[in-house]
């Protein structure tokens, strides 16, 4: 009886079209079930069921498959193994560690290597915090493992399980599969708790409730932190044509954000970029912990030449891992580079399914998929009662650099921060090429209290004033393009001069300079404040009728342009000295003019 049941459950391949195959005899298969395909046992997922015909997307190269080969169900959806060993590791789109793949095949990624996951042989030094008789609910912490130097993995009771502890092991070395705690629920059923738990990638992990997001993700990047801040638990999109520095910006955020955990998804991008991350990240020290930033990083790499179906899955793999650490009470930041490649993977598979296309060939469900993804961000009260958050920052690669294409348009609807990268700024090597006119942050209002309490009383006010100056400059530049700068009145030329300092000295930030690659908020504020100081000093002079040419002292202007390099992050006294220089110069200049005017008055008086 059992035999016939098994036979019935095996599908037979009837059609092959790239990564999409069809099978017969699949009426007992479930939607979104994970399957193995063919003699090589390629990994796939059921995406359509129609009568006894099933359609499977295959996560590996399908060349060599034949009709008549078998499709075997695994009885569960595409799931991840979540446990210690995720951090400092790099996975493909379906959580197979690339290092393990390398051990199997040194250079190329072969097909048919089966499902691999985090190391199940490694022994972890485990502290069990639960005691006999304790009542554990879902999300409660029953043990601790120091996963890396900076991150403690908090072993949690998986969702939907609770009960009284009836058995515990002693502290010691265990693998992720060892049973550490046994609990008995109200129905007297026993549950075994292990270090690792499984979770289906397409289902968001549950939380108690959503909290308000009131703290910024401090990135050390001036244009973001001061002008367009991202809240912890918020969402941001970075769209930009090729060569505008999306990946560069994402790398900077991954390196310097003050999140506890970084999940970086290289989705359909270049292989060398991931290699760069592997080579560079271990050498960089996190400004908060002083340890290598790899200690808090999980990398997902499904590069552009790796199978397209796994690229589609990589986004979900990344966000599920992020949720796992969020549930422990960590602030997680997730970078997805690039969500357009994921959308294209959706399009490619949709095309092979011969679905009716919507805009530009993308499937009609593109907006809902994008929304589902970004909605997995958020600041939450975890099931265990802690506070955790996921910030999602997605890069978007619009076709032709045109922001009106479907992926950018739909992403805009579901994110709160929009950091528009600009081709012309990139051409002039103004990096980060974030266009201040097109970008916006929807978090200014809710974060303003935090900025007032933690940075400066007038921080947001200052930001608004400087941003207004930049808007004003934009209008003036349009005029300059028509008539030249010389005909503008002095107060407008002064705005142009100050705007230039803001652009070159402040908004441009050099990722390759040791001092400038990460700048603490205190210095970010002080720099901008000093620019405002210069602006106001000049305006005093303007009132006296001093022309811009005289107000502009080359030495002082030069100091402003270079202050990001010359003033160390940990010693801001240089800014005070700069203010002294300003005072000296302008006091002298103003005095000269006041005297001159005084003399004039006297002369008039005499006459």
């Amino acid at each position, binding site marked *: 009886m059992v035999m016939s049941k098994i036979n019935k459950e095996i599908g037979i391949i009837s*059609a*092959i*079209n*790239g990564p999409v195959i069809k099978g017969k005899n699949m009426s007992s298969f479930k939607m979104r079930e994970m399957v193995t395909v063919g003699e090589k046992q390629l990994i796939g997922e059921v995406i359509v069921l129609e009568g006894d015909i099933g359609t499977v997307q295959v996560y590996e*190269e*399908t*060349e*060599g*498959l*034949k009709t*008549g080969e078998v499709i075997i169900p695994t009885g569960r959806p595409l799931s991840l193994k979540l446990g210690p060993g995720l951090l400092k590791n*790099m996975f493909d789109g379906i959580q197979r560690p*690339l*290092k393990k*793949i*390398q051990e199997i095949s*040194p*250079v*190329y*990624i*072969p097909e048919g290597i089966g499902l691999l996951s985090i190391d199940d042989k490694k022994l972890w030094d485990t502290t069990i915090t639960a005691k006999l008789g304790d009542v554990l609910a879902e999300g409660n912490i029953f043990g601790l493992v120091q996963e890396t130097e900076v991150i403690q993995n908090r072993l949690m009771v998986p969702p939907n399980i609770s009960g009284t502890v009836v058995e515990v092991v002693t502290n010691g070395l265990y693998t992720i599969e060892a049973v550490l705690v046994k609990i008995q629920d109200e129905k007297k059923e026993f549950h075994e708790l292990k270090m690792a738990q499984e979770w289906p990638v397409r289902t968001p992990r549950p939380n108690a409730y959503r909290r308000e997001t009131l703290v910024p993700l401090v990135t050390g990047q001036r244009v973001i932190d001061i002008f367009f801040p991202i809240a912890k638990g918020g969402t941001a999109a970075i769209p930009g*044509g*090729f*060569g505008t520095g999306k990946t560069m910006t994402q790398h900077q955020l991954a390196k310097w954000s003050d999140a506890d955990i970084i999940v970086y998804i*290289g989705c*359909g991008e*270049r*292989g*060398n970029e*991931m*290699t760069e991350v*592997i*080579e560079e990240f271990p050498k960089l020290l996190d400004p908060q912990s002083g340890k290598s930033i790899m200690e808090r990083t999980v990398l997902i*790499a499904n*590069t*552009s*030449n*790796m*199978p*397209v179906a796994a690229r589609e899955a990589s986004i979900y793999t990344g966000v599920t891992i992020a949720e796992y650490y969020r549930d422990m009470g960590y602030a997680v930041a997730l970078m997805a580079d690039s969500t357009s490649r994921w959308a*294209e993977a959706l399009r490619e598979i*949709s*095309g092979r399914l011969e*679905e009716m296309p919507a805009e*530009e*060939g993308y499937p009609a469900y593109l907006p809902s998929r994008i929304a589902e993804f970004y909605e997995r961000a958020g600041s939450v009260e975890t099931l265990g009662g802690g506070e955790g958050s996921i910030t999602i920052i997605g890069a978007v*690669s619009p*076709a032709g*650099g*045109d922001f009106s294409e479907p992926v950018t348009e739909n992403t805009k609807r579901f994110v709160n921060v929009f950091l528009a990268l600009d*081709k012309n700024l990139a*051409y*002039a*090597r103004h990096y980060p090429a974030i266009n201040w006119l097109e970008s916006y942050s929807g978090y200014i209002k809710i974060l303003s209290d935090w900025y007032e309490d933690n940075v400066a009383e007038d921080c947001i006010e200052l930001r608004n004033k400087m941003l207004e100056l930049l808007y004003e400059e934009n209008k003036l530049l349009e005029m*300059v*393009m028509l008539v*030249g700068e*010389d005909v503008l009145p002095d107060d407008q030329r002064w705005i142009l001069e100050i705007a230039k300092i803001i652009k070159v000295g402040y908004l441009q930030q050099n990722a390759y300079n040791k001092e400038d690659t990460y700048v603490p908020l205190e210095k970010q504020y002080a720099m901008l404040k000093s620019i405002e100081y210069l602006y106001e000093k000049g305006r005093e002079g303007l009132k006296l009728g001093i022309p811009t040419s005289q107000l502009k002292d*080359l030495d002082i202007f*030069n100091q402003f342009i270079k202050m990001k390099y010359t003033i160390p992050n940990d010693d801001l006294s240089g800014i005070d000295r700069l203010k002294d220089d300003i005072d000296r110069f302008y006091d002298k200049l103003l005095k000269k003019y006041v005297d001159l005017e005084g003399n004039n008055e006297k002369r008039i008086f005499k006459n």
Partner: protein
Amino acid sequence: MKKEYLKIDKVIGPLIEISEVDDVFYGEVVDIIDIDTGSIKKGKVIKIEEKNVIIQVFQNTAGLAAGNSIIKFTGESFNLPMSLDLQGRIFNGVGEPIDNGSAIFSAIEANINGRPINPMSREYPRNFIQTGISSIDTLATLIRGQKLPIFSGNGLPHNELAAQIVKQAQLGENTGEVFGVVFAAIGVKHDDEKFFRKSFSEANIMDHVVMFVNYADDPIAERITTPRCALTAAEYLAFEKNMHVLVVMTDMTSYCEALREISSAREEVPSRKGYPGYMYSDLAALYERAGMLRDRKGSITFLPILTMPNDDITHPIPDLTGYITEGQIVLGRDLFQRSIYPPVAVLPSLSRLMKDGIGEGFTREDHADVTNQLFASYSKVQEVRTLSQIIGEEDLSQTDKKYMAFGRAFEAEFLNQGFDESRNIIESLDLGWRLLSLLPLTELDRLSPENIKKYFSQES
């Protein structure tokens, strides 16, 4: 024994459909034998639906009829024999010799589709390749193992530029390293192929060149395999034989057109401008085969050429390419019209890998500063030029006039150089400094004080 089939159900462009087929695999190679002449065409299974199979034929399908051909499934994937004897030879797009030489025999065969390189196995490319061309070396530096396409337009001298790079490129500074060139011509004119062959023999490197040629009047399905054959040969030479291989491929636009034609014959859902939705993945599968590996000595540096339809950089072909490759060298028509060779449009050109391959120990410590300053200043030149067209050059401010002078000198002396002229990087950087000195020091905000002190001297 594999079965042979006699009946073709349908012929659409390069595709044929046959029915009642058993035991074939996806990607299997088929021989299509003409009963009358005995000539053999090659094809590949690209779709299986129950017992119906669609085969993409690599040669011309003209003359095929329902009853005059035998279709024979070979039971193999598309493999090419690999050997050092490939060098100095010329093949067609499916890897058959077309130079009257003998066939290549080797026990080593490689699947032309390759397999994705594990990012863990890659080595990040850092070694500077001097091309002797100021604009490229200084502003969009080529790095060994990089994929850097030339975005060109019809009639622009991209072939000359590629030939000059091949001729002048010093692929490695250490002696004892072996170099090779793999050249793939996809849908090119006979003239273009002749030009390259001539310049290879003039440079005396013909013995180190492997050529795969698909002429413009050759079947388009063969254009799909031409770059794959070439890259398979390059992978063999680089990663099995430790050679430093430069792959020059022209014209990627023909490749993409072929992809579109076949996609349309397959009645697939099109995306932008009718190109298939999988074009990004398909191109990536080619471009990502360039690079270096951690435990192998060789490298593949990839220099594909594409002609932008209507000079439009936002067209899907250059657009998708730019998202995959590590930068681009863009040629500009207005520079070409002003007789500037090579007409490298500086501002949109970019090398993503140069940041780690320049500066002290690689080129010279001031390289990054000079690059940034030249970009920033030349970008300002564009603004000033626009303004001068409106108000006239006479009415420009003193500083703006200096920018006009700088712009002219930059184009005439820095960008412009002879087809046989090779400048080393030090010469190029010094030239950059000399041109920057046309501008007031106050305008040069990208230069560090140390470098200014060392290299800057104002011309009076």
